């Protein structure tokens, strides 16, 4: 681990020696990467980034399964390195609404497998004797939570990385506990392994022909095959050196340290009481020795520009610890004093340290991970918290070396903002809004208010005229429903009985109009546009082999055919599911969901071989999509289309060029809502015209614009269609998801071996559709689940499959045509049987549910007669 000489070349360069860089180095070494160089502009072990002054609290329970699992895995790693203290953590509620939220935390804890308890104020006081119980109504106790020492963990991981990379020890010896800290002393002082370059500032990245070539520093230039940006809040600055973008902004998180507190003097150790999160004031109190650290997210958002962050020389404490902005912290002080007067309101206890701590904020709060698709070999590993750092290092190391991580990282893929959400202005607008939501009660369907609209399709004004309720996906504005369809509530009053949601939470960001729109579509015809798809055309002489290699379904089909297919990683888990249409002998079109578009694009481009003649043309912003579906769809479309749209002339699952009124378009006959109809693709510039044409033609049939509520939920759930990011993800296979209808094709493709094995093997879990049997088993208000609830047997035990995966509701939505509230969940074989009665826990109560379908058979129109009519 020599640090004196700056090398000329390295296999993999890691920029940044915070918790993220160190975790990456360790796990890359474990994955067999040998020639590693870690560069940081600051000294070791604390180079001055955010890792040096954090509260180091690791609170595992979140509403996101992946983030919870990543924190759990990280806690285990900190613990194994002897750098974890299991203090526990308590989130306290000051309001009734928060008590409900804590019940939802319990629900998530159960769903994701974290131990937790709901506490009364008196029980909180037993654990935290200095808390003012009059102020609180309940506590959510995460018994597995605790604190870590990320600087020490960093040192250990560096030493191990070097020892593994030089061959002095093996990962197995470390896992067996055979390698103590002393065994690592001085190993690998020779060449190779992990080289360290502290006090070395990266000044430029050299990119040539779309590939990363070298890293230029104030101590020389090092050529590199692969570079990872793990530079915390400086990451955007480094990315810019390569002409790409990592969308995050530095943000202030204020923190003070108060002491000495006499009460703590009687206890041993760095921490001896649970960390308290005072959720309703957006604050925490974290004992540390004889001090109490008081941190706040309550103050007004204070966002920085990265250029203004001082250098190490200019910073009195460190670059990420500017002086506290006093006035912003005033309310926080009052709230903390009120909650813990016994320890904090002691005149002897002074404020010994006070900072505007700087951390990274991505526009949606999730990390920014993965390959930066415009520069081969350049990776991002940013906007990561200490609580998840080691596991994210592990996952990204897996991703870099074997192509996919164990835990699905789609929601953290850096490419999710590709080419729409990377401007500083927009990132700041979102970060500003997000900041106020930290510790907030965020509804699963909650919509952003800031930075909108950023992407609008050609239909935007027309839809707005119908009083669209706008939801956003990957920046695209999409109507969720139309207030103009309110009249349909009367038309379908009988059908909707029992499906209205009396509870405010359940009906937030929702409207029964969605259900009425759905029924109207099933009876007549509806138009849905624009879904904000990612649309990628692939052309070139090698395109057939290439597309074949990417997809499970056979793609060497006749021109004009469409193929709905899973896209798999090597482990047989899902990377995506999408539709591929063959437009010509050497021309395919890939259509994928908007939210996954940026990540899918990165996946596809990264799999184009060096010598392969394949070009990607991104049509997402230049084509609009209008779906016309329902029993009357043919009549409407035929009346304005030059071509023959009959069943014979335009078969299901095929695509053709058509002319609709004045608009030259291209259409696929398929449907995600299970109806006869077409997805019509036209140039964005013609979209307005297209909408008018279809709307006029549909007038006689009372055509209605309907929203994504129908497209994405009600229609889909009735048809048992799976949604990427909900049902489909890296941890489940097509066999488990019931998507093996393609069988096993001849040609090779990504994940083929694992896919074949999965077909052969018995499923450890199978995706099922369930319905809620009773919405108010104990009387009172009927409740409607929203997704992510744990699924339990009749005894209240959460179902766990033989691979340790727990059953939870992957999607929830009402099926108006079947008159039931539907849920999807993967169930282990013993419970995956139609008619089985199970339970789900929702907001602290249990509800009986029945398994309706095992596998992908649609609940509505199981033979797909409608689509084929």
């Amino acid at each position, binding site marked *: 681990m020599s640090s004196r000489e700056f090398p000329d070349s390295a296999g993999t360069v890691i920029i940044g020696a915070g918790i993220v860089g160190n975790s990456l180095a360790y796990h890359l070494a474990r994955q067999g990467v040998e020639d590693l160089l870690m560069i940081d502009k600051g000294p070791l072990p604390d180079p001055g980034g955010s890792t040096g002054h954090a509260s180091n609290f690791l609170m595992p329970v979140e509403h996101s399964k992946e983030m919870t699992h990543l924190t759990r895995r990280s806690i285990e790693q900190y613990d194994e390195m002897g750098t974890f203290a299991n203090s526990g953590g308590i989130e306290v509620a000051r309001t009734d609404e928060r008590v409900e939220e804590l019940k939802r935390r319990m629900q998530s804890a159960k769903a994701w497998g974290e131990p937790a308890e709901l506490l009364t104020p008196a029980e909180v006081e037993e654990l935290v004797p200095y808390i003012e119980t009059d102020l609180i109504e309940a506590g959510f106790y995460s018994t597995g939570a605790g604190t870590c020492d990320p600087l020490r963990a960093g040192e250990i991981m560096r030493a191990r990385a070097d020892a593994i990379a030089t061959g002095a020890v093996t990962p197995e010896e470390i896992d067996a506990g055979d390698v103590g800290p002393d065994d690592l002393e001085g190993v690998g002082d020779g060449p190779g392994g992990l080289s360290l370059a502290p006090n070395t500032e990266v000044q430029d990245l050299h990119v040539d022909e779309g590939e990363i070539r070298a890293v230029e520093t104030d101590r020389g230039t090092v050529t590199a095959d692969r570079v990872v940006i793990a530079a915390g809040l400086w990451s955007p600055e480094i990315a810019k050196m390569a002409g790409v973008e990592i969308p995050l902004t530095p943000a202030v998180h204020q923190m003070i340290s108060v002491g000495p507190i006499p009460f703590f003097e009687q206890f041993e150790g760095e921490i001896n009481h649970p960390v308290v999160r005072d959720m309703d004031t957006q604050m925490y109190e974290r004992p540390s020795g004889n001090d109490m650290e008081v941190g706040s997210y309550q103050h007004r958002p204070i966002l920085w520009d990265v250029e203004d962050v001082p250098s190490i020389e*200019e910073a009195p404490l460190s670059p990420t610890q500017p002086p506290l902005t*006093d006035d912003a912290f005033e309310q926080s002080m009052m709230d903390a004093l009120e909650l813990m007067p016994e320890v904090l309101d002691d005149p002897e206890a002074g404020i010994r340290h006070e900072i505007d701590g700087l951390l990274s904020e991505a526009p949606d709060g999730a990390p920014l991970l993965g390959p930066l698709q415009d520069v081969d070999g350049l990776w991002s590993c940013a906007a990561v918290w200490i609580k998840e750092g080691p596991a994210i290092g592990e996952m990204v190391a897996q991703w870099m070396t074997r192509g996919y991580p164990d835990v699905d990282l789609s929601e953290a893929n850096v490419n999710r903002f590709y080419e729409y959400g990377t401007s500083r202005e927009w990132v700041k607008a979102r970060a500003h809004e997000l900041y106020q939501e930290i510790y907030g009660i965020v509804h699963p369907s909650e919509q952003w208010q800031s930075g909108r609209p950023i992407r609008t399709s050609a239909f935007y004004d027309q839809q707005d005229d119908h009083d669209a309720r706008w939801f956003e996906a990957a920046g695209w504005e999409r109507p969720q429903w139309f207030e103009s369809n309110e009249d349909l509530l009367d038309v379908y009053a009988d059908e909707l009985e029992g499906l209205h949601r009396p509870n405010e939470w359940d009906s937030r960001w929702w409207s029964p109009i969605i259900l009425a729109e759905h029924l109207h579509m099933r009876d007549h015809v509806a138009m849905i546009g624009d879904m904000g798809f990612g649309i990628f055309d692939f052309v070139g002489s090698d395109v057939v082999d290439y597309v074949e290699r990417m997809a499970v379904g056979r793609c060497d089909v006749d021109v004009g055919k469409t193929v709905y297919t899973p896209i798999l990683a090597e482990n047989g888990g899902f990377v995506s599911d999408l539709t591929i249409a063959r437009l010509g002998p050497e021309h395919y079109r890939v259509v994928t969901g908007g939210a996954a578009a940026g990540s899918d694009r990165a996946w596809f481009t990264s799999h184009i071989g060096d010598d392969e003649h394949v070009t990607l043309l991104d049509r997402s912003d230049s084509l609009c999509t209008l779906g016309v579906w329902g029993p009357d769809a043919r009549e409407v479309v035929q009346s304005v289309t030059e071509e023959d749209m009959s069943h014979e002339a335009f078969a299901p699952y095929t695509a053709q060029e058509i002319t609709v009124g004045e608009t030259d378009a291209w259409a696929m006959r398929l449907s995600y809502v299970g109806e006869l109809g077409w997805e019509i693709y036209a140039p964005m510039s013609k979209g307005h015209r297209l909408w008018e044409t279809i709307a006029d033609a549909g007038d006689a049939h009372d055509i209605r614009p309907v929203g994504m509520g129908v497209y994405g939920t009600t229609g889909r759930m009735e048809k048992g269609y799976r949604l990427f990011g909900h049902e489909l993800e890296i941890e489940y296979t097509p066999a488990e998801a019931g998507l093996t209808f393609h069988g096993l094709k001849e040609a090779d493709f990504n994940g083929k071996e694992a896919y074949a094995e999965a077909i052969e093997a018995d499923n450890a879990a199978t995706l099922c559709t369930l319905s809620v049997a009773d919405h108010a088993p104990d009387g009172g208000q009927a409740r409607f689940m929203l997704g992510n609830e744990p699924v339990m047997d009749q005894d209240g035990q959460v179902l766990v499959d033989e691979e340790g995966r727990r059953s939870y509701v992957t999607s929830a939505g009402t099926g108006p045509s079947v008159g039931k509230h539907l849920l999807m969940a993967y169930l282990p074989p013993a419970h995956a049987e139609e008619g089985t009665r199970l339970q789900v826990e929702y907001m602290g109560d249990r509800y009986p549910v029945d398994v309706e379908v095992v596998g992908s058979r649609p609940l509505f129109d199981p033979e797909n007669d409608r689509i084929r009519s």
Partner: protein
Amino acid sequence: MDVLTCIKRVPDTGSKIVLTEDRQSIDASNLGFTMSPHEECAIEAAVQLVEAHGGTARVLTLGPPAADEQLRTGLAMTADEATLLETDGAEWGPRATANAIADAVRAAEEEFDLLLFGNESADAANYQVGIRVAERLGLPVVAGIKSLEVEDGTAIAGREVSGGEEIYEVDLPAVVTVKEGINEPRYASMRAKMSARRQEVDRREPDAESGPGTFEKLRLEAPSDEDSAAEVLGEGPEAVPRIIEVLEEEVEVV
């Protein structure tokens, strides 16, 4: 007894100093502002004396409107009152500053028993203001003080000299300039800091006649820090030749 402590708002140092483009001031955006450690000790001394003997502790500064931040630090250390002689931000020389302070002391309602100053300010370090105020008010002054007690209208003040300590007895009222080390200044408690933020600061205009006029700042210069760099010549026996080379050729001692 009533004690007045005079302090000065200065940019926090301890890191590289960046000047504003016009080189008229220090770019303090990363630094924040503070007062000198001597002044913090002076406040601590004042507060302790008042705690022991009763009376009030007032902090005073001559400075820009934002200097109330430093006054509030004093209040948070449990001083009772604060006065800001508000300037437009221009630098005042030691004489002008001392005149303005002396005038303010004369005009004050309290009759101060003790005026405490830091031995020198953290930025200009003119070592003058306390002494000039004493001169103008005709009061006795002891400077560079590292121990201070008050008994029956007398201050007993100690100053470190090489090999010992000089002890002075001065009749109150008097001026004392204080040096770091006289005490361990307290960290403000949360409660004190909070009430300090809300307390009214007595803002006055300093006598314009004594204004900055006689004193003109041309520009600031930041000292270069290049020649202080340390170089690691090597480690273990391999380093010997290089060390000898340096000793012979660069340092020329061998």
